[in-house]
């Protein structure tokens, strides 16, 4: 239903989310992001290329960390959203509060540019 894997590329922490993020599974996404922040990761990318579905529970997880990203000067970028998943972010305007780009390369450039 949900599969979360983590990898690091130099000083960039990449969390790959596969499957469905809903009310039952959003805790795993929450834990992955929370752990990354606790470990002091400053550049966090979320790979959504295999994310098939997201509900408000998943949106709420991202939203709940916006303040923490700002307070800790962390950079946080989502990439690879399908049209249907992107639509869910757009409907409430969350795409304006989060940094969302199309590809992994763009995401990596975004965090390196902002240093």
């Amino acid at each position, binding site marked *: *239903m949900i599969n979360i894997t983590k990898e690091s590329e130099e000083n960039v922490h990449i969390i790959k989310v596969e499957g*469905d993020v809903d009310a*039952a599974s959003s805790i795993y996404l929450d834990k992955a992001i929370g752990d990354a922040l606790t470990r002091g990761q400053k550049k966090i990318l979320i790979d959504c290329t295999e994310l098939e579905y997201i*509900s408000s*529970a998943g949106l*709420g997880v991202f*939203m709940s960390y916006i303040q923490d990203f700002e307070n800790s000067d962390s950079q946080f970028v989502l990439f690879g959203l399908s049209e249907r998943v992107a639509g869910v972010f757009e*409907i409430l305007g969350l795409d304006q*509060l989060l940094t969302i780009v199309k590809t992994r390369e763009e995401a990596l450039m975004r965090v390196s540019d902002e240093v």
Partner: protein
Amino acid sequence: MKYSIKVPCCKSKLKTIRSFVDETLGQYVLSDVDLNMLVLAVDEVCANLIVHADMDDKMSDECIVLNILVRKNTIVFEVIDQKDHGFDFSNYREPRLEDLVKTRRKGGLGLMLVRRIMDDVEFKTKDHTNVCRMVKKMQVPVA
């Protein structure tokens, strides 16, 4: 055309509900994005109901019934359950996104999404039966 499903009131059954909506409305000509929005709205109402019924991951004897009525220009969704948690929609005030961000709240977005997606949403409780009725006005050609 009317379609129905009855599932136990627990979070692990949300995927079953989503698949039912997806497969049922997949018989009609809807864009992928539109179809996902309708699946999302139903999922949000059911998830809300399960969370407020405090059923979480526990398997329950309680069930949720979902009816989908497809008409030429309208799709009507009814989510029905029997738990004692009637939702008073008249008292609902939509939270501001900025406030949710400031307070790091994870909840509060579900009903906002439902209201954006659907043309009409109403909650009714009668004789311990709660009914959430959602109406989407759209052309629904058969595939």
